[in-house]
C-alpha cells in the first residue's frame, strides 16, 4: 500500500535536511500552482511505497504568507496519510505552536524532535516520553544532520499512517471558546468533524481565506457566534486563542524541559552575530561577501589578477568550448553526408539552442553553491536585517539586493536567486525588475553606439548613464508594482534570525544541483524552442532558405517598424535587432554588422569591444534615438534564457507573461520619453 507522508515545520527547523536524508537524490522539485513556492516530493530511500512531501517552512497555519496558505490547503484538503511535524528542540516553544495547530486538523501525526545534539550541548534535557503522553502524539528524538533516529521516526510515522491514528483532542480552550467552536462547526455542518472544527477556529481567528469559502447563507449566523465569542473574550477572541495556545505550551515546556541555565545564555552563534551585524563592521562585511559572490560567479579578472577567470566563468568557458567542438563535429559529419544546406542549418541551430542552455549552467551552479551556503548558515536572514532600512522604501526586502546585484552579471542566475526572498510578493516584484540591471551581454550594444555616435570623451559617461538608468527604472518599477499590482498584500518585517550553523555539504550540493536541473529542464525547453524559431524566421522565406535581408524576419521587421516610430527608429533593421537580441542581447551587434553593410566577423568583434564604430548605423540613428534604442533593449523582454528562468521561478505562464508585458511597456514608455524629451533638448 502506498502512503504519503508530509513534512511540516518552522523555517530553519532542519526540515530540508531531514527531507534530503530521507529521500537521498530521488527528489522532484516544482512549484505550487500560482505562487513562487517550492513543491518538493521524493520517495523514501528504505521503502519505495512511501512518498514524502516537503511542505514549505511555516510558523503558523494563518493565511499570512503564500507558504502558509499552500501548506494548510494541502493539509486540510489533500490530507496526507500522516504528517511528520519537525520541532527544533532548541526553540521548542515557538515550534510547538505550529504543532498544536497541525493537531487541530486531525491528521495522523508524529513529532520529530530535531537538533537533539544541540539541546544536549547546551545541557538541556527534554522528556520525550512525557511530551508524547501529554500531547497524545508520538514524539521521536532525532538529529537530522547525522541521520540519528530517522529509522525510528519513519517506522513510527508509517505505523501511524497505516493505523489512521488521529492525534487526541486537547481541549485547550475555555468553555466559552469551546462552545463557540462547537456552535460554528454545527452551522458549517459537513461530514468531517475535524475539518468543520478547524474551520470554526479559523473563523473566530478572522481568517479571511476560510471566510470567503463559507456558504454565504451561513455567514450571518456564524458572524453572530464569532461576535459572541469576542464579547466573552473581552473583545478579542483571536488574541485569546493564540494566548491560550502559548500558555499551554509554556506549561508543557516547564514540565518536560529541564534547562541547564535560566534566562538567555549567549551562544557561539550570538558572539559571531555580534561581529557580523555590528554597527561598524556589518556593512563592510556585507560588501565583501557580496563582492566575493559576484566575483566567484562572473569575474574575468578573478582576485584582481588580470585574465584569471572566476570558477563560474572558467566552467562556462569549458562548457562553451566543449559544446562548440561537439557542435562543429556533428555539423561536419552531416555536411559530409551530403545533407542540404537547410538541414545543416537546422541541426546547427538546434545545437546552438542546447549550447545556449548549457552555457548558463555553470553560472547557476556556482552562484547557488554560494547562495545555499549563505542561506543554510543563517547569514541570509542577517542580510535582510542589515539592508531592510534601505530597501523598505521601495517596498522590497533587503534580500532583493542579491538578485539585483547578480543581475549586473547575468539575469539568469540572478532571477533564480529571487527564491531566497521571504515573500511571494517580493519574489515576483524582484523578478520583474531584475532584468533592468544591465547584464554583461548588453554592454556590447552600448559599446557599439558609444563608439559610433558619441565623442570619445563622452563614451564612458554614456555607457555609465545607461547602467544608472536601469537602476532608476528598477526602483521606480518596484514602487509602481507595489502600489498598484500587489497592494492587497500585507508586508511587515517580523522575521526569525536563526542561529548560525555550519551548513552540511550534502544540503548545499543538493540545493545547487536542484537549481541546475530545474533550469536545464524547465527553462531549457523555452530557450531551445525560441532559439530554433528565430533561426527559422531569420533564414527562410516562402521560397526556401535565404539571407536575413529577405527572410521572414525582415518582413516582420518591416511590418512592425511603425510601432517604434515614436521611439525614433522606425527602421526594419532596428526592429530585427530587437528580435535577434532576444536570443542573446549581444546578437544585436552581429545583426547590425550584417544588415548595415555586411561587415566581417573581425569588425563585429571590434565593435562589440567598443574599439571600432559601425558608421552605417548613422543612417538610422542620431544620438537621441540611439540612446532610446539602448534604453529599449536594456528594459524590454530579456533574452529567452532569462524568460525561461522567469518561467521556471514563477511557475506559471500567466505570471511570466505579466512580467514580460510589464518589461515591454516599461521599455516602450522610457524609450519614448527619451526620444521626445531628448529631441526637445538637443
Amino acid at each position, binding site marked *: 500500500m502506498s502512503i504519503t507522508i508530509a513534512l511540516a515545520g518552522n523555517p530553519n527547523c532542519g526540515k530540508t535536511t531531514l527531507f534530503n536524508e530521507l529521500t537521498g537524490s530521488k527528489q522532484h522539485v516544482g512549484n505550487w500552482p500560482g505562487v513562487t513556492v517550492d513543491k518538493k516530493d521524493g520517495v523514501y530511500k528504505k521503502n519505495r511505497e512511501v512518498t514524502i512531501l516537503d511542505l514549505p517552512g511555516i510558523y503558523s497555519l494563518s493565511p499570512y504568507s503564500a507558504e502558509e496558505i499552500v501548506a494548510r490547503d494541502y493539509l486540510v484538503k489533500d490530507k496526507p496519510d500522516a504528517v511528520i511535524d519537525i520541532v527544533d528542540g532548541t526553540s521548542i516553544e*515557538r515550534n510547538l505552536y505550529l504543532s498544536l495547530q497541525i493537531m487541530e486538523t486531525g491528521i495522523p501525526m508524529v513529532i520529530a524532535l530535531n537538533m537533539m545534539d544541540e539541546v544536549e550541548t547546551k545541557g538541556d534535557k527534554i522528556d520525550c516520553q512525557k511530551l508524547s503522553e501529554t500531547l497524545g502524539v508520538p514524539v521521536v528524538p532525532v538529529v537530522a544532520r547525522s541521520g540519528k533516529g530517522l529509522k525510528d521516526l519513519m517506522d513510527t510515522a508509517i505505523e501511524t499512517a497505516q493505523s489512521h491514528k488521529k492525534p487526541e483532542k486537547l481541549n485547550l480552550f475555555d468553555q466559552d471558546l469551546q462552545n463557540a467552536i462547537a456552535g460554528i462547526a454545527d452551522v458549517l455542518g459537513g461530514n468531517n468533524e475535524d475539518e468543520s472544527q478547524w474551520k470554526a477556529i479559523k473563523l473566530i481567528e478572522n481568517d479571511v481565506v476560510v471566510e470567503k469559502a463559507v456558504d454565504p447563507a451561513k455567514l450571518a449566523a456564524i458572524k453572530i457566534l464569532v461576535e459572541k465569542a469576542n464579547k466573552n473574550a473581552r473583545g478579542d477572541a483571536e488574541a485569546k486563542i493564540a494566548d491560550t495556545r*502559548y500558555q499551554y505550551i509554556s506549561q508543557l515546556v516547564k514540565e518536560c524541559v529541564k534547562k541547564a541555565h535560566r534566562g538567555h545564555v549567549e551562544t557561539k552563534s550570538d558572539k559571531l552575530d555580534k561581529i557580523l551585524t555590528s554597527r561598524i563592521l556589518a556593512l563592510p562585511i556585507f560588501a565583501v561577501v557580496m563582492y566575493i559572490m559576484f566575483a566567484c560567479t562572473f569575474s574575468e579578472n578573478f582576485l584582481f589578477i588580470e585574465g584569471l577567470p572566476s570558477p563560474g566563468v572558467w566552467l562556462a568557458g569549458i562548457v562553451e568550448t566543449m559544446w562548440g567542438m561537439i557542435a562543429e563535429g556533428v555539423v561536419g559529419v552531416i555536411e559530409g553526408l551530403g545533407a542540404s544546406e537547410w538541414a545543416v542549418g537546422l541541426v546547427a541551430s538546434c545545437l546552438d539552442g542546447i549550447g545556449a542552455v548549457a552555457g548558463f549552467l555553470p553560472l547557476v551552479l556556482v552562484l547557488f553553491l554560494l547562495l545555499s551556503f549563505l542561506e543554510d548558515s543563517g547569514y541570509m536572514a542577517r542580510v*535582510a*536585517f542589515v539592508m*531592510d532600512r534601505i530597501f523598505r522604501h521601495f517596498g522590497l526586502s533587503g534580500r532583493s539586493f542579491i538578485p539585483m546585484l547578480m543581475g549586473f552579471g547575468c539575469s539568469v542566475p540572478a532571477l533564480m536567486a529571487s527564491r531566497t526572498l521571504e515573500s511571494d510578493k517580493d519574489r515576483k516584484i524582484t523578478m520583474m525588475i531584475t532584468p533592468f540591471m544591465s547584464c554583461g551581454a548588453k554592454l556590447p550594444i552600448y559599446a557599439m553606439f558609444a563608439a559610433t555616435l558619441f565623442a570619445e570623451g563622452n563614451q564612458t559617461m554614456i555607457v555609465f548613464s545607461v547602467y544608472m538608468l536601469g537602476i532608476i527604472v528598477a526602483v521606480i518599477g518596484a514602487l509602481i508594482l507595489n502600489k498598484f499590482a500587489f497592494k492587497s498584500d*500585507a508586508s511587515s*518585517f517580523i522575521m526569525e534570525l536563526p542561529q548560525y550553523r555550519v551548513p552540511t555539504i550534502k544540503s548545499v550540493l543538493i540545493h545547487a544541483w536542484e537549481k541546475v536541473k530545474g533550469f536545464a529542464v524547465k527553462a531549457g525547453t523555452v530557450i531551445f524552442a525560441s532559439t530554433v524559431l528565430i533561426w527559422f524566421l531569420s533564414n527562410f522565406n516562402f521560397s526556401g532558405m535565404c539571407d536575413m535581408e529577405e527572410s521572414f524576419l525582415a518582413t516582420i521587421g518591416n511590418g512592425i517598424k511603425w510601432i517604434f516610430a515614436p521611439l525614433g527608429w522606425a527602421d526594419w533593421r532596428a526592429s530585427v535587432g530587437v528580435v535577434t537580441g532576444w536570443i542573446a542581447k549581444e546578437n544585436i551587434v552581429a545583426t547590425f554588422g550584417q544588415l548595415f553593410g555586411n561587415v566581417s566577423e573581425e569588425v563585429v568583434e571590434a565593435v562589440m569591444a567598443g574599439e571600432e564604430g559601425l558608421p552605417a548605423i548613422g543612417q538610422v540613428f542620431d544620438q537621441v534615438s540611439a540612446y532610446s534604442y539602448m534604453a529599449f533593449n536594456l528594459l524590454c523582454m530579456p533574452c529567452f534564457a532569462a524568460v525561461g528562468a522567469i518561467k521556471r521561478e514563477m511557475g506559471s505562464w500567466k505570471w511570466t507573461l505579466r512580467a514580460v508585458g510589464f518589461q515591454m511597456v516599461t521599455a516602450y514608455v522610457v524609450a519614448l520619453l527619451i526620444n521626445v524629451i531628448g529631441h526637445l533638448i538637443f
Partner: protein
Amino acid sequence: MTLKDLRPGQEGTVLSVAAVGPMKRRIMDMGITPGVGIKVIKVAPLGDPIEINVRGYELSLRKEEAQQIQIE
C-alpha cells in the same frame, strides 16, 4: 511604554499587542503574547529594525511594529 522604547540589553514583559489584522496575527503567532518576557538584543546598523530574544529564539522586527507592543 512600548517595545520600541527599550534599549539593547533591557528586558520587559508584554502587556498587550495593539496592532490589528494580519500584523497582529503575525506578532502573536511568533510568540509575542501577553505575559511573555522580551529582551532587546541589538539595533540594526542603520538604526532599524531591532533584534529581540523571545521564547528562546531571536526575532527581528521594525520599530514601527515594536511600537505596537505594550510592555512593562
